[in-house]
């Protein structure tokens, strides 16, 4: 009664298990461990891990034509809508006040993007194509949606490892930054206190800021328009105070839904043959390099500013220019307090940090422009 054909049908799944797929499922377990036990950006890494696991099960219908993970990928990754929507939510929760009070910190954000280009060069030397190299470099933006957006355009086949690297290392900022800061600064430098002055930032200025940034950046670097435009849209909605329902929806309901879908879709790209290359290993290593160079460049540039200002700038706030808002600023504050518990740099670091957030997006757009992508 049970014929040959039926048995073949029943064993189809088991027969299609490959060592690659088993390895990738193992990778998904590692990601789950990092997300759940180590609390590494679980909102992103857990869905990515789940997507990876589901995509690597034998004959997975989820990545077949019309499979749900495929549908999600086409819904928001192909057209880059998901990372942009997440940016609206981030903008709705970001207060650029520390930067507005202290605009000269803006340049620290620029310095913190140096790792992008250093890493791009290293990647080129390792044999990656220009587009791939730029995608790996963008890990140095230290900003999830920017990394996803840029690499999704330039090298979609590397989206998985780049996103994983970007978010994992972002969780490691508290571990990566302190040794670099200590290596590059003397105790005396780290103990520099910076005075505070406060000025009221008018509501008008707060509302004009996102508009000015959008028009300025969008006009000079059209490729950056989607990234900067969506980040600043969220901020405009927040600062306007006129559309609280939409602000809340962007930061909560939309952000949560999109994060789940985005993570699953990105995870589903991590299938055996494409992922299991030495290139993936290189990406992971180069990602760390990008973070480290960013931080070092930020600190060194801040040292220059310190010198120019006659010793008034504590160079460690430069490390906050890498973005990773607001985590990097907190780490800087902690490092400062290790040498002098009464040294409060947080607000200055937050300013540099907010500048880094803007600069990361600008750098993403600049990179796309230089690659001439899309037109």
């Amino acid at each position, binding site marked *: 009664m049970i014929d040959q054909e039926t048995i073949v049908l029943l064993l189809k799944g088991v027969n299609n298990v490959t060592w690659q797929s088993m390895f990738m499922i193992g990778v998904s377990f590692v990601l789950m461990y990092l997300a759940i036990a180590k609390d590494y950006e679980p*909102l992103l890494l857990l869905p990515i891990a789940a997507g990876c696991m589901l995509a690597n099960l034998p004959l997975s219908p989820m990545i077949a034509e019309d499979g749900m993970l495929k549908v999600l990928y086409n819904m928001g990754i192909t057209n880059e809508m998901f990372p942009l929507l997440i940016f609206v939510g981030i903008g709705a929760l970001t207060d650029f006040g520390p930067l507005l009070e202290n605009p000269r910190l803006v340049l620290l954000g620029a310095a913190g993007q140096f790792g992008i*280009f250093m890493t791009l060069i290293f990647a080129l030397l390792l044999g990656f194509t220009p587009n791939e190299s730029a995608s790996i470099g963008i890990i140095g933006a230290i900003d999830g949606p920017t990394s996803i957006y840029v690499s999704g355009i330039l090298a979609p086949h590397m989206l998985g490892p780049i996103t994983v690297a970007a978010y994992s290392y972002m969780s490691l900022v508290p571990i990566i930054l302190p040794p670099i800061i200590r290596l590059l600064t003397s105790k005396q430098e780290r103990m520099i206190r910076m005075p505070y*002055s406060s000025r009221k930032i008018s509501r008008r200025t707060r509302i004009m800021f996102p508009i000015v940034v959008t028009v300025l950046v969008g006009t000079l670097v059209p490729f950056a328009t989607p990234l900067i435009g969506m980040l600043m849209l969220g901020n405009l909605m927040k600062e306007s105070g006129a559309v609280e329902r939409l602000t809340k929806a962007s930061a909560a309901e939309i952000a949560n839904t999109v994060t789940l879908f985005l993570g699953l879709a990105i995870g589903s790209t991590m299938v055996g043959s494409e992922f299991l290359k030495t290139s993936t290993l290189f990406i992971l290593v180069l990602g760390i390099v990008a973070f480290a160079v960013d931080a070092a460049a930020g600190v060194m540039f801040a040292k220059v500013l310190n010198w120019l200002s006659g010793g008034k700038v504590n160079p460690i706030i430069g490390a906050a220019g890498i973005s990773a808002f607001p985590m990097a600023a907190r780490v800087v*504050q*902690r490092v400062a*307090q290790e040498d002098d518990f009464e040294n409060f740099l947080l607000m200055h670091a937050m300013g540099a940090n907010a500048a880094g957030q803007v600069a990361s997006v600008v750098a993403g757009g600049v990179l796309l422009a230089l690659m001439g992508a899309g037109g």
Partner: protein
Amino acid sequence: MENLEWGLKMTVLGMGLVFSLLGLLWGLLTLVLVLDKEPSVPVSAKEAIAEAERIAAVADDAVGAQVPEPATVNGMPADLVAAIMVATMKHKLTLRRQAAPFMRSYWPGSKMFASRWVATGRVRQNYSWQPRGK
């Protein structure tokens, strides 16, 4: 070494553009602040840090901004530090309870999103940064 050359060119152009753009932004922001004519008043570092923590606490809610650090500040429990800060600032502030910002209150009763700094934030978050009691 053609690759290297191209990469260096990218770096110079890229960093140049990023610095130029942010420099331009610096200029514009400075201009705006001059036009705003708001006086710049010195404040204590503690006031500044409390405000900074408030801003950071809101940003923690953003996706991709989780804080896996241990909840301590130089060995002291963070909640305690926050509480002390709040206590030292309290007499300067009029508390506007009713305007608790929506960001923090949508799932009341749950501590779901509450970072260790929320305690600080709850007190000051309705003020734009003007600790002089203006």
